[in-house]
């Protein structure tokens, strides 16, 4: 990832430059250094900020835009579930059980074994998933960033300790840890599951941030900042942290998808979210009793696939946009 020296906020872009206005004999006069002389010569230089570049690059990425659009639609449906879902997720209609998808009565996804409208259940499930996904990604990113920063910057025994802790998490298979944690902390509640997932996901981003801190800690501009009297916190925040934002953003985005899939898996196995809270994983699990009614299995799963697909597209686009050095390996 290209480093961003925070002092160099702008990258001059050399489009057409204006011709000389005055009759300055630059050949004879001793020249002051750098951009000043350009100004003195009456030359113009256009500048664009770093974030402009990132934005431009992102929007050129077609897949990322499709993903973004998809996410807006799907997550929007979740947020506005009240309005989007024609029924509540628990409304029972025993006259209409196991109906195939149809437009009659707005049962677009059919009904389940006690007549609840499946489309509504899926939509409410989306809301749960997006809540879990976003919170887990945000929380784990923040915690991971702090831990990684401290660990990478200070090194020493603190670094060792923190890294051993993350190692512990890594020497056991992920699912096993999550299941065990769920067994311990009790499952069923959406927030318990969110907490468990966040407590697991932070380790990944912590390692990445730590790596960046370790490598940048020795760089010259950090030494320069120290020499000019900057304190540790200032160095960490102003100089090194901006370089971690890119990977954190990408990682955080992809974590949303990973968290959603993991929560669905946990719920499917019965260790995550339990009814009555709607969860796409629970829906798939319940569908196992009625394998003949394909819509019961397909729709919630398909929704998960679509969400994660869109998240991954956006994440990929962000990764390309934030790392100008990377070869354009499109999608």
């Amino acid at each position, binding site marked *: 990832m290209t480093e961003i020296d925070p002092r160099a906020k702008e990258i001059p872009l050399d489009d057409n430059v204006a011709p000389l206005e005055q009759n300055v004999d630059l050949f004879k006069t001793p020249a002051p250094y750098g951009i000043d002389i350009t100004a003195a010569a009456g030359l113009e230089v256009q500048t664009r900020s770093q974030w402009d570049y990132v934005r431009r690059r992102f929007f050129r990425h077609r897949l990322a835009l499709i993903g973004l659009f998809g996410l807006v639609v799907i997550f929007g449906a979740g947020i506005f579930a009240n309005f989007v879902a024609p029924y509540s997720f628990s409304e029972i209609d025993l006259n209409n059980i196991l109906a195939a998808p149809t437009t009659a009565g707005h049962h677009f996804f059919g009904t389940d074994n006690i007549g609840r409208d499946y489309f509504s259940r899926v939509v409410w499930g989306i809301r749960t998933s997006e809540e879990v996904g976003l919170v887990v990604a945000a929380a784990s990113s923040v915690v991971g960033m702090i831990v990684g920063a401290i660990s990478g910057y200070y090194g020493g025994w603190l670094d060792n300790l923190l890294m051993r802790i993350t190692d*512990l998490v890594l*020497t056991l298979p992920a699912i096993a840890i999550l299941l*065990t944690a769920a067994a311990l902390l009790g499952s069923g509640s959406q927030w318990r599951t969110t907490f468990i997932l966040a407590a697991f996901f932070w380790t990944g981003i912590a390692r990445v941030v730590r790596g960046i801190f370790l490598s940048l800690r020795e760089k010259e501009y950090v030494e320069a900042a120290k020499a000019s009297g900057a304190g540790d916190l200032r160095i960490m925040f102003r100089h090194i942290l901006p370089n971690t934002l890119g990977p954190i953003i990408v990682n955080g985005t992809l974590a949303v*998808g990973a968290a959603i*899939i993991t929560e669905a898996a946990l719920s499917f*196995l019965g260790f995550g979210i339990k009814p009555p809270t709607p969860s796409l994983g629970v829906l798939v699990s319940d569908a196992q009793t009625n394998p003949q009614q394909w819509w019961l299995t397909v729709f919630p799963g398909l929704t998960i696939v679509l969400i994660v*697909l869109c998240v991954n597209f956006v994440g990929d686009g962000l990764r390309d946009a934030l790392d100008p050095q990377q070869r354009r*390996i499109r999608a």
Partner: protein
Amino acid sequence: MITYIIRRILYSIPVLILSTFLSFTFVSLAGNPTLALKANPRFSQNTVDLISARYHLSDPIPIRYLYWVRDVFTHKLGSSLSTLQPIWPDIARTMGHTAQFIILSEVLAIILGVAVGIYSAIRQYSVFDYSFTTFSFLGFAMPTFWLALLLQILFVDIYLKWNVRIFYTSGLNSPGQGTWSLDRLQHLALPIITLCIISFAGYSRYMRASMLDVINSDYVRTARAKGVPERKIIMRHVVRNALIPIITVASLNFGALLGGAIITESVFSLDGIGFYFINELRNNDLYAVMAYLVVTSVAIIAFNLIADLLYGILDPRIRYD
């Protein structure tokens, strides 16, 4: 090199101790085993008391941990709290089953993934490349349990409609069939396909990225400037370098999968170590769960070590001493 291996092994011991202790504490706090025992209708109060005494269930956790450690070495991981049967034979058997289906699945995934990755990189942006990129993205977005279920439903449907069993949808064997029979393969086919698809998505993307990295490197440019034909460049220079990270990732992956492809095994009701674990977890069987965690930790640590060693063998820049 040997000293490195020994050092790594020695280093993992405290990690293992710490992780098992934490897990033990975790699981013990998760559910009071005495309660679980009492709830078990097969046990009379007398039996419960016996078991309590035997497993020192009334002692504080650290003490219980030490007893457990002793049991690990003397009684081969001890006996299950709920069935009072020795654990080790169960673990060995289930581990064997898991290993069987994982090896088949991963080997297939690696071979296909590497091949597709190489070709995608050589023919970047072609139809082939785009199709497999799409496939990989789908693979990443697909929850394992859903894929497994879909395959299951599909093949149950086929059976019901046309009365022919292509692949079985649950269990390891039909009655009377052995470990290395066609019947076993038919039972394992769907789990293997499930796992293989998901792994393949990862390997093919990773290999493609690695190939592209190498193809654009300076030393490949040198090889071109030398006039080496493109095909030789790919085979001799590019693939060799691109394969290194894949091999190590595959090794790490394998270690993690030995912890049981829990989800896949659950859906297909396979008698593997993952399925074993989740059942014992539901039963709150402390010793069985601990046994599983120990075994899988050792597997992961071992394969981590193997991954590092492989990397050292393949890349001459890395030398452990």
